[in-house]
């Protein structure tokens, strides 16, 4: 038997075909339903096959009109009016209009399981004024609702009105407005997505076809990426300079812009002494963030800022001279000083105890297998032990780790925070009373169970206002509360993962050309890349 044709090479001669590594599956499931909860549809269904009204560009901090061209708040922010783009067609040739937008939102109302953004919590009705104008009437003041409305992928009324069960509908032959809508091939190991013949952006996309081989593990994807078999990926690659860039410094590139927030160390504020904000700050000062960034995160990121804001959200930060205290710089001596001041005493083992004599046992909960966070946790445990705590990490499978986090069964844990177009979701998630539930019940966010009355008032104000100046001022005040109370401890800025290869394509966004962010994991901003990248 002759073994020719070694391992299956990509057809490098076929121009304009971009191979992408984004999802990790062993076998593709044919689901192109953009409304499917749990986002189980194949990437880029939500933003690629279907499109939203507006896309927020997290690098330039601008809201880019997409299927919507303009929006205005009316009647004291009770009504959101959106102008819909003209001359847009669905990929089957039918015209797109505001009626499709109305239909999509009505569908979410009729089938609450599809309302993953919770839009109908604050909407009263959606009304078409004419084919290019639509109004959203709010039942309560909630200006941040624009994010969810603007980001909603729109489905075609003329097709979906005939679907009996849109929840279980897998939409095998999607009809969308996006740049790529034609399913060219679909097997369980590989599928291919071709261009939309009726796409509304003239002469775009320049990419001809998207190609998705099945990579079940990060290792398999990394092998393919190194081998020039992948053009664009959202994988985490350790020691990327040595493993990937060195192999071809001309074409192998990466860019890890920050998501806007930070990765946090959560302290359960229902347990002593973590209910004391000074103790939380002291613990924060004992952590060597530089070491964590270098050893745990391969220098892919930077230590957290005092406001926990990073990347594109950095422009919201309060001015440096208004930051009246600093508890993110490494200062273990000050740590010990504060702990002493707060009345903590050392027991016979030399470990800190509460002023009332109860012991302090610290276990840092981390997901098993998430090696970068595990390394970070090990460094934190070491730092805490160095100043006299009794700390160690414990790992658990994702399911039970998250369950413990939600039910408040932890002393410390490393986790993410909520994200959005503004810092609002993050601070709200860290400080709002409405998310606090007793230990033992499931909390969706605010797992550390901290609440602040001033914050609650600010939240209401934020939700009622669309004036940019007022909003900026409110966020400023939220930051001050965050700094004063330290509800959770920011560790390092949260990076996003974008790896790309310029062998066959050019005009990727990058540090030298930051017109957009680069990670395919950021939906719907990935639409910028899909429409702007050009084959060589």
């Amino acid at each position, binding site marked *: *038997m002759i*073994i020719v*044709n*070694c*391992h*299956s090479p990509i*057809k490098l001669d076929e121009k304009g075909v971009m191979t992408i590594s984004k999802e990790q*599956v*062993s*076998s593709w*499931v*044919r*689901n192109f*339903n953009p409304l*499917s*909860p*749990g986002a*189980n549809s194949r990437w880029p269904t939500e933003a690629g096959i279907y499109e939203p009204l507006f896309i927020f560009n997290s690098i330039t901090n601008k809201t880019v009109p997409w299927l919507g061209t303009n929006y205005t708040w009316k009647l004291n922010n009770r009504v959101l009016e959106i102008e819909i783009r003209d001359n847009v067609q669905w990929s089957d040739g039918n015209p797109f209009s505001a009626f499709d937008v109305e239909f999509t939102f009505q569908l979410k109302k009729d089938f*609450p*399981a599809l*309302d*993953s*953004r*919770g839009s109908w*919590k604050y909407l009263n009705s959606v009304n078409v004024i004419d084919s290019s104008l639509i109004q959203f009437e709010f039942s309560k003041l909630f200006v941040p609702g624009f994010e*969810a409305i603007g980001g909603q992928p729109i489905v075609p009324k003329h097709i979906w009105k005939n679907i009996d069960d849109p*929840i*279980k*509908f*897998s939409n095998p032959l999607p009809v969308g407005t996006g740049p790529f809508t034609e399913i060219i091939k679909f*097997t*369980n*190991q*590989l599928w291919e997505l071709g261009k939309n013949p009726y796409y509304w952006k003239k002469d775009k996309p320049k990419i001809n076809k998207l190609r998705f*081989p*099945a*990579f*079940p*593990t990060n*290792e*398999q994807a990394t*092998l*393919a990426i190194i081998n020039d078999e992948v053009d664009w990926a959202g994988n985490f690659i350790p020691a990327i300079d040595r493993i990937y860039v060195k192999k071809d410094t001309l074409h192998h590139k990466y860019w890890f812009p920050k998501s806007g927030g930070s990765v946090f160390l959560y302290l359960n504020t229902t347990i002593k002494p973590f209910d004391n904000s000074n103790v939380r700050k002291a613990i924060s000062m004992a952590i060597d963030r530089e070491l964590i960034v270098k050893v745990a995160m391969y220098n892919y990121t930077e230590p957290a800022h005092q406001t926990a804001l990073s990347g594109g959200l950095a422009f919201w930060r309060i001015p440096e001279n208004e930051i009246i205290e600093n508890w993110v710089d490494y200062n273990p001596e000050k740590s010990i000083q504060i702990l002493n001041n707060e009345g903590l005493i050392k027991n016979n083992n030399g470990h800190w105890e509460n002023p009332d004599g109860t012991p302090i046992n610290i276990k840092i909960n981390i997901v098993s297998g998430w090696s970068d966070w595990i390394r970070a946790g090990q460094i934190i445990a070491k730092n805490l032990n160095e100043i006299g705590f009794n700390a160690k990490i414990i790992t658990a*499978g*994702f*399911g*039970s780790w*998250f*369950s*413990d986090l*939600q039910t408040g069964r932890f002393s410390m844990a490393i*986790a*993410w*925070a*909520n*994200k959005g177009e503004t810092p609002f*979701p993050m601070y709200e998630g860290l400080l709002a009373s409405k*998310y606090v539930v007793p230990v033992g019940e*499931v909390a*969706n966010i605010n797992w550390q169970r901290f609440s602040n009355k001033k914050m609650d008032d600010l939240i209401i104000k934020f939700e009622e206002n669309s004036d940019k100046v007022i909003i900026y001022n409110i966020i400023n005040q939220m930051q001050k509360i965050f700094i004063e109370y330290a509800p959770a401890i920011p560790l390092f800025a949260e990076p996003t993962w974008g790896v790309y290869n310029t062998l066959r394509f050019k005009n990727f966004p990058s540090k030298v050309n930051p017109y957009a962010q680069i990670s395919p994991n950021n939906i719907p901003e990935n639409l910028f890349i899909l429409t702007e990248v050009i084959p060589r």
Partner: protein
Amino acid sequence: MAITVNFFIPRLMPGDPASIMFARFQGKLKPETLIALKKTFGFTDAPIIIQFWDYIKHLAFGDLGISIAYFPQPVVEVIYSGIFWTMFLAGISLIISFMIGSFIGIFLAWFREGKMDSILLPSLSLIGAFPYFWLAMVLLYILGFKLNLFPLRHSFDQNIVSTWSFNYILSVIHHTILPAFTLIIVSLGGWVLAMRNNMISVLGTEYISFAKAMGYNNKVLMFKYAARNALLPSITGFGMALGFILTGALLTEIIFSYPGQGYLLLEAVRSQDYPLLQGLFLTITFTVLITNWIVDIFILILDPRTRK
């Protein structure tokens, strides 16, 4: 009994599938999404007995439910996508390993004072003692990545349309060689040892010594008489191993990206996908039961003593 255990064990794990799916997005989803997710998967607060009865009812109609991790694909379809590849890879590897292993075992027993015995047996056992994933990764890296002799992933070349063409079959074989090879060499030692020891005890029996004294041809003796009897206990072992092929190739499938059931099982556990887990366990249970039944019949055929 198996079905009952099947139902309750996945539900003993802490957490629920909706929360896990929600958490995967690490803060990008609104908290309201969790409520929507729970509605989708029909998480009722109905008492567990009602849920169990519901499950049994659907099972009777062959409806294994809808997968959570691969929503909205029905469990039957999800399992169907992988089961034949696993049976193919694990089955072929097992059969080849068994045949070669037993053959070697026969020879080693017959020539048991020879050099082959003292070299081959320990080396095969040594290879079998290596951590499997390490061995598989090293071979993949050297033979696949560095030397480009074998494909790095999948079960056939994606550029070939999947019909039963000659190219397709050749591609499937090419893609199966490396994963099958790793599976074969780690289990070879076990079969060799089993067969060799069986043979040795058979060779020690009187009827063999008698036949030797009678001047029977050695070859005939070795195969027609000794091996045939020595094979019987091995066949039982083979039968049991055959039953477990649906579980055995998990690491192989992950390392070689082979699209089988092993990875599905892993994903199902990770996502606490109850319907899929139940479906997969059911297939494993059935396979074990059926292969055991087949092996029993086979032994009836092979060994006249078991017939009445």
